[in-house]
């Protein structure tokens, strides 16, 4: 298993955002689905230790997640947030920053291509990109680290249909390549059907279903 969660709980402002969550996430492509406020994004942030649970245990590749050094964990398990948040500069400088943090060589053109961007984007100022282009640059930046796992938090929620389709096409290619695992948060069951093999369904911070796509989202 990629991730194992046992009785995971997390409180914010005196309220349980996640409550006794026990679930397995296998290698491959998993969609975390549920209505807004179900705790999907919070759960995703736990998987690369941007936050730690108040209760319960999380295992990554059979080892307790908190036994990993957080910085090196985040370079293997890379998270792309819901809204693009690039550093000032060009697309290439953002990619280079990420690659250097991970100690990986950067093939800028190839990395851009995997995120559905053509090589001309390398020198573009990130402040002058559309939100859809910025979100693809965020995806490219995460890929520049050559992560083992890509965590995506509603990567298309702020985008129009055309931009969404481009991101989904890039994610579809990554999924088929089999070189990394994907955990995708989505409020849209149709997107989960298009991109997931495995589904974790949350409602009100509790597990409402977990298993192969065909069983959970029948």
């Amino acid at each position, binding site marked *: 298993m990629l991730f194992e969660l046992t009785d995971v709980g997390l409180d914010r402002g005196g309220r349980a955002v996640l409550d006794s969550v026990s679930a397995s996430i296998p290698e491959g492509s998993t969609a975390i689905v549920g209505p807004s406020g179900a705790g999907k994004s919070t759960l995703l942030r736990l998987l690369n230790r941007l936050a730690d649970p108040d209760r319960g245990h999380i295992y990554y590749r059979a080892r307790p997640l908190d036994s990993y050094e957080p910085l090196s*964990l985040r370079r293997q398990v890379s998270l792309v947030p819901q809204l693009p948040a690039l550093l000032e500069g060009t697309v290439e400088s953002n990619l280079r920053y990420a690659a250097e943090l991970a100690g990986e060589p950067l093939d800028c053109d190839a990395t851009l291509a995997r995120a559905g961007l053509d090589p001309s984007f390398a020198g573009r100022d990130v402040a002058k990109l559309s939100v859809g282009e910025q979100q693809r640059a965020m995806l490219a930046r995460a890929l520049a680290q050559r992560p083992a796992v890509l965590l995506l938090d509603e990567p298309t929620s702020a985008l129009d249909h055309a931009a969404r389709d481009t991101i989904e096409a890039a994610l579809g290619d990554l999924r088929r390549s089999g070189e990394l695992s994907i955990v995708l948060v989505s409020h849209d069951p149709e997107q989960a059907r298009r991109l997931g093999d495995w589904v974790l369904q949350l409602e009100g911070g509790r597990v409402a279903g977990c298993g192969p796509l065909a069983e959970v989202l029948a």
Partner: protein
Amino acid sequence: MSASIHVDLWQVAASLVLVALAAAISFWQRADLERDILVATVRSIVQLTLVGYAIKLIFDVDSIWLVLVLLAVMVFFGAITARHRAAKVPSSFGPLLIALALAGASTLGLVVALGIFEPTPRYLVPVGGMVIGNAMTASAVALNRLGDEMGEARARIEATLALGATAREAAAPTVRRALRSGMITLVDSTKTTGLIFFPGTMVGMLLAGASPTDAVRLQLILLYTLLGSVSISALVATGLAYRNFFTSAAQLREPEETPA
């Protein structure tokens, strides 16, 4: 620089005519400041008189230890005052206390070591007061900005942490802007000094009968000393305080779990 003048009490009393004028303008124009003007006048008399006696005592005793105690008290109350401006920075008192202490100790130590001032109460008390006062303002402005910017930049900082950057790397652009805002006021006022306003030391020395050359030279020394102290305090305050926004696992703390 041993110029000395005597000011009689009747001269001070006569200057209260201008206070009365201020109160009259407030009353006439219904600015509703008469009460505040009265309070301000009484407080200025009481506070400055007390400080005057304290400084006289320190000069009479002529003990370097008493000066150090006085400077330590200034640092302590300076940090308490600055903390109110830095309300959005969790546990800002410690960073401010260290920033003011380091700024005061290093700049005063340096001007004494360079032989610019003698290590006597006559120099250390007034210069120390200016150094610590300016350091307090600069670190308060810097941390006020840091608190605002850390809130605004949350998404970008967390996205950078998500790449495996350290807290220091993720906060670097924010810390840089906060440091800059703490330093820039004095840099700007140093640029315009003499053109738009006459700084206090120079005015005081001219009134006390010193030569304009001496007044200008001493003012320059003080301006440069203050630039040093302002830079050190803003650097130390921001460099320590940004850490309080993060956990030891390089996680950005939730705003509600940061103690005020």
